[in-house]
């Protein structure tokens, strides 16, 4: 993984006595004490981040946590008080205006919360804007902007004005405008926060889809944990201007760095985050087909007091399951082959299947659900109880410890 953006000790102080306040941040004095002593507000406090090429990096925090200030320092819409932002190793904070403009024109695009579309320009003119300021010839920029709109399915609207489009469509234009420049980095400041929930999910899906095809480095700002978990390869949580934790979504849920993060993740809908892998039992009861007959299978089930058992090949390839009553009947009938008794209709899921999607599978069956990899090898099983307990508060710790 290559590092795309390296943020080093980035600090933004608003108000008077900035110099004095900066000295205090270097000594590690708290934000509140600095406000009391100097009257200056620390917007972002010594932020350090490493953002990898091609990842969706989410910066999450409540309002006032400094996330919007932080993202605006990445393209210097806000001038940092101190620190460095290295993009491909080049510190943009030290750049002169002309070089900074080049970076903004070629490397970084931005998508805004309220779309940031120019109301006096048509959809096409809006999409062309980034190319227009680069001085690209009229025909070429029209072609490229139309291509970007076409990719977003918006070409029919190109001669309309932003206020004639719905919010979701406007933000699609905002995204198309950002993509028309073919940037390596896209900054998205609460880009989906102004949209209604259904449209919002669609847009999240579209973004993920887009990211599958063309890997760009996306820095996504949001105050919504569910959105962070859905989109983020990694998530940085901010509080009072400080970055308190940077981790993958799973790690943040499972190992919150402090009480604040813990409280944050408390009421998250875990079914949208947890996958089969998280809640499966990795030590299920199973028998190997070629090494067993009906008698040994029955004995195994009786010992463990279970009503059915998974059957696999020697290399763990899933074959099916046996029902205890049927096996007992077969033993009485003196039949030793287990093949004819094998149920092959065992429901299976992949390790990355969301718990949410397990509901439908698990709610009306008696057998466990097998978790298999792409070669049909058994990885574990999910039982109904595990699904329920994973979603309850105490259950979380059990899941985490398993």
């Amino acid at each position, binding site marked *: 993984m290559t590092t795309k953006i390296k943020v080093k000790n980035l600090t933004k102080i608003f108000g008077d006595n900035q110099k004095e306040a900066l000295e205090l941040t270097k000594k590690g004095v708290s934000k509140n004490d600095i406000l009391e002593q100097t009257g200056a507000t620390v917007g972002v406090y010594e932020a350090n981040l490493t953002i990898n090429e091609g990842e969706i990096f989410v910066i999450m925090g409540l309002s006032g946590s400094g996330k919007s200030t932080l993202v605006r320092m990445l393209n210097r819409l806000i001038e940092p008080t101190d620190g460095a932002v290295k993009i491909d190793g080049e510190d943009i904070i030290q750049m002169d205006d002309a070089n900074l403009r080049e970076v*903004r024109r*070629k490397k*970084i695009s931005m998508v805004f919360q309220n779309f940031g579309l*120019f109301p006096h320009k048509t959809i096409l003119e809006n999409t062309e*804007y980034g190319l227009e*300021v680069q001085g690209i010839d009229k025909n070429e920029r029209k072609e490229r902007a139309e291509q970007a709109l076409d990719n977003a399915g918006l070409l029919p609207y190109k001669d309309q004005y932003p206020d004639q489009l719905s919010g979701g469509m406007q933000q699609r234009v905002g995204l198309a405008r950002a993509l028309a420049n073919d940037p390596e980095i896209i900054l998205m400041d609460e880009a989906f926060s102004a949209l209604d929930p259904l449209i919002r999910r669609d847009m999240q899906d579209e973004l993920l889809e887009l990211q599958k095809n063309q890997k760009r480095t996306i820095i996504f700002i949001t105050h919504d944990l569910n959105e962070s978990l859905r989109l983020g390869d990694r998530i940085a949580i901010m509080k009072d201007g400080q970055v308190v934790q940077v981790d993958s979504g799973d790690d943040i849920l499972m190992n919150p760095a402090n009480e604040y993060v813990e409280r944050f993740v408390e009421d998250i809908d875990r079914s949208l985050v947890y996958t089969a892998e998280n809640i499966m039992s990795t030590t299920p009861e199973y028998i190997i087909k070629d090494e067993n007959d009906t008698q040994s299978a029955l004995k195994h089930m009786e010992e463990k007091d279970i009503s059915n058992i998974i059957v696999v090949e020697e290399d763990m390839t899933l074959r099916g399951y046996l029902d205890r009553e049927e096996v007992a009947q077969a033993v009485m009938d003196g039949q030793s082959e287990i093949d004819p008794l094998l149920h092959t209709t065992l429901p299976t899921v992949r390790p990355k299947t969301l718990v949410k999607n397990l509901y439908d599978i698990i709610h009306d069956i008696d057998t466990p659900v097998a978790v298999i990899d792409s070669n049909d090898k058994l990885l574990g099983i999910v039982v109904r109880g595990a699904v329920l307990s994973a979603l309850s508060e105490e259950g979380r710790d059990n899941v985490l410890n398993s």
Partner: protein
Amino acid sequence: MFELPLQELPVSEIVETATQWLVDTFSGFFNFVTQYGSRFMSNFTNVLSIVPPFLFILLIALLSYFANNRKMGLPVFTLIGLGYILNQGLWGQLLDTIALIVVAAIVTVIIGIPIGILSAKNDTANAIIQPVLDFMQTMPAFVYLIPAVAFFGIGMVPGIFASFIYALAPTVRFTNLGIREINPELIEASESFGSTNSQKLFKVELPLAKNTIMAGINQTVMLTLSMVVIASMIGAPGLGGNVLTALQRAQVGEGFVSGLAIVILAVIVDRLTQSLGRDKRA
């Protein structure tokens, strides 16, 4: 102990000396402006008067028809109103007045918009410009006539100068306001794509502030029109001259006729400049 200054401070002497100094020092410039200004103005009025009155009235009526979303109200008013002015034998004065307000408004807009932009972009400049505008707006308009005469003598040119001072404020203020009230997200959007300052100004800020700026220009034009009578006191020709004469001779009828002509012109000019600021899409 602190003592009140009992002597009168020599404010008026200072202003007079300063004005005299300006007149002496820049006499070349003032003479140049006066000379070429009056020549330009008389040429402009002559050109206007070449157009036959009937054709002129028809053209204005057509203009108001198309500028006002093809509604019939203003064109009809224009035909009747201007027809009345022609009927009263005030056509020459009308053209003089139109020339005065057109030139004064153009000069004011050309100078006012850049000052407004400066004041929107720079808080220090704004802090200086605002009180100066307050001063210019509240000082009785007659006072400007005195230095206007000192600089430019009598006639059209000092009239334009006095109107300019009096009418500058709205254009500057509305330009300032129009740019400052733009949604900051749009400014950020413009900057985030790497716009230069002038790209930002011409592609985003001025187009977005256009309606507000046009409202300011409308106000400026109306203020120049209200200076018409006052400017006539220093020999600026036009409808105002007739009002002034009527006042001096206590001719109520004459005063009313010319006054009504000014009102008619004001209504037409107001509606026309307003329609320029209207959004064509709406």
